């Protein structure tokens, strides 16, 4: 049966829907007040209820005093409405966990400074250099990555990386400079397609070098990783990877990825600097994350003839040992 609805009824229904959505959103905010030390009002927006946000958010809330309002998930809600309700709370700061929350904070809340956390590639997300926006980046900076790699390979002097210039030139330029301070020469080899790695490898990689599988969105895929893993293993060349500890688990010598241990406390300190110490947002800026997960594949180390110093082992976050069968 087709039900006829007049334009006025339609508008009334829309208003009713809107009111219901607003009421549902208002109810979704959790008020976490610290009566002992009331402090300024902070609204926390979380991208989704995925567990990845749990520990950093928990740590942030634990380390922050103030009048805290938390929206546990912005998913499936109207961004404009979230902006309106957040503005009505008149916060001194909005803290956004995850990209979706950060986008809403940036686009729909213009009345309070924003601190973002756990946003992958904040530059591409358009969060760099904005007035009133500070954050904690999710990518481990190259200098920290290589400081970790050098614990295991103290004699590391020359590293080759393959990259797609339009996607990663800025990262490569920063890395050349950062690695030079660690007395490591980075030799970047620009290629146009993933398939070009094989031909570029022969001319660039020689004994005594290592290969860095950097976070390049065009070149990172299962095929290029498998090829580089097999070839470097055959040539006894260390393969060093960024972004995920999965690479070490799947046959790279080492990988460095972000460690979530510090993120929440780091964000809490940034919030305190903004609200208590009254530092301008620009002075906070976008900070590199503190800490990194260093994963080392001991079997690969053995196969390519690398002797890992025993005193370094306690400083490695994850040791991958295939022979040690999990029970």
């Amino acid at each position, binding site marked *: 049966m087709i039900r006829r609805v007049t334009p006025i009824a339609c508008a009334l229904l829309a208003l009713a829907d809107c009111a219901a959505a607003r009421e549902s959103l*208002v*109810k*979704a*905010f*959790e*008020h*976490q*007040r610290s009566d002992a030390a009331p402090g300024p009002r902070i609204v926390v927006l979380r991208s989704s209820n995925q567990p990845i946000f749990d520990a950093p958010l*928990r*740590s942030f*809330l*634990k*380390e922050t005093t103030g009048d805290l*309002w938390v929206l546990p998930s912005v998913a499936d809600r109207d961004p404009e409405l979230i902006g309106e309700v957040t503005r009505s709370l008149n916060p001194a700061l909005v803290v956004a966990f995850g990209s979706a929350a950060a986008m809403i904070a940036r686009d729909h809340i213009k009345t309070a400074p924003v601190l973002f956390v756990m946003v992958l590639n904040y530059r591409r997300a358009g969060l760099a250099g904005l007035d009133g926006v500070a954050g904690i980046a999710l990518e481990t*900076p190259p*200098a*920290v990555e290589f*400081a*970790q790699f*050098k*614990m295991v390979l*103290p004699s590391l002097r020359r590293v080759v990386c393959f990259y797609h210039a339009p996607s990663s030139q800025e990262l490569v330029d920063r890395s050349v400079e950062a690695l030079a*301070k*660690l007395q490591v020469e980075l030799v970047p080899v620009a290629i146009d397609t993933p398939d070009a790695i094989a031909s570029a490898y022969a001319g660039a990689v020689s004994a005594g070098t290592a290969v860095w599988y950097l976070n390049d969105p065009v070149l990172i895929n299962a095929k290029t990783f498998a090829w580089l893993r097999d070839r470097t293993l055959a040539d006894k060349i260390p393969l060093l990877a960024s972004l995920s500890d999965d690479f070490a688990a799947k046959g790279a010598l080492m990988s460095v990825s972000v*460690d979530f*241990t*510090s993120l929440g*406390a*780091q964000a*809490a*300190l940034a919030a*305190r600097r903004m609200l*208590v*110490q009254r530092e301008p947002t620009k002075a906070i800026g976008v*900070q*590199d994350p*503190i*800490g*990194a*997960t260093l994963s080392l594949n001991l079997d690969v180390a053995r196969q390519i003839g690398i002797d890992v110093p*025993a*005193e*370094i*082992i*306690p*400083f*490695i*976050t*994850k*040791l*991958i*040992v295939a022979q*040690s*069968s*999990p*029970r």
Partner: protein
Amino acid sequence: MTLVAGRSLTFIVVLTVARVVSAGEGRIVYFDPDANHQAIVNTISLFNDFLNEANLGLVFQPVSTASSLHDLVAGNQAEFAILSANVLRNSKSLNLAPILVPSSGGDIYYRKSLVDAGGGTPDDLEGKGVAVTVSGGDTASAAQQILEGLRNAGHHVKSISVIPVSKDVDALLALSFGQVAAALVTDKSVEVLKRINPSAAAGLRTIFQTQPILRSPLCSVGAVSIARKKQLSDAFKKMAASRAGGRAMQTMGFDQWTDFEGRMLTK
């Protein structure tokens, strides 16, 4: 709007259990606030391989907070415990009897130092970030320890913000990149930084050093027979010779087990 009384989020306290403890098996529960807990989780299978090889009928179970350890020990769910000397001193009601102590290069103690980048005075740490390895998220105790150390060293700092890290090297790198104002780390980790980044290490200034900290003793829990303690002690003294056991020890930062003596706790 929903009013949430306090912060009711619950911490996950038990890190990982390698397998379910079956009938006839005991448990070695492990807690050390200075340990790299992520690395320890990776060590569980190695430690259990060693326990299995030695036929001890035990399962190794790290926990991330002192209260989890208390719960397991007080609830008679552990036959042995490896726990920090500080927790041991404060757990007299738990009937723990130390048997062995780990050592590294013959040293049963380690020390931690609060280091900064060398500019200004230590009083400038007021309200600043200090990176520390903290297990179980107990940043308040870590802050208290640092403030006390500063006070004893004659500095006047009322508050700091503890930034927890997984391992000492992360704290030192955060300091060398200007992300925190100071780091509380073991002397061994400063040696590591000297090797990987000598210029960063050269500028470090030690503000204070803690008293020697006894490495975490292995204790029996409750009424364990002398024969059982001897069986465990004999097996652990040979741990370094086992492939899995040796690797587990390396990950935990020691290379031998030594007989415990009462005077060790009083230093």
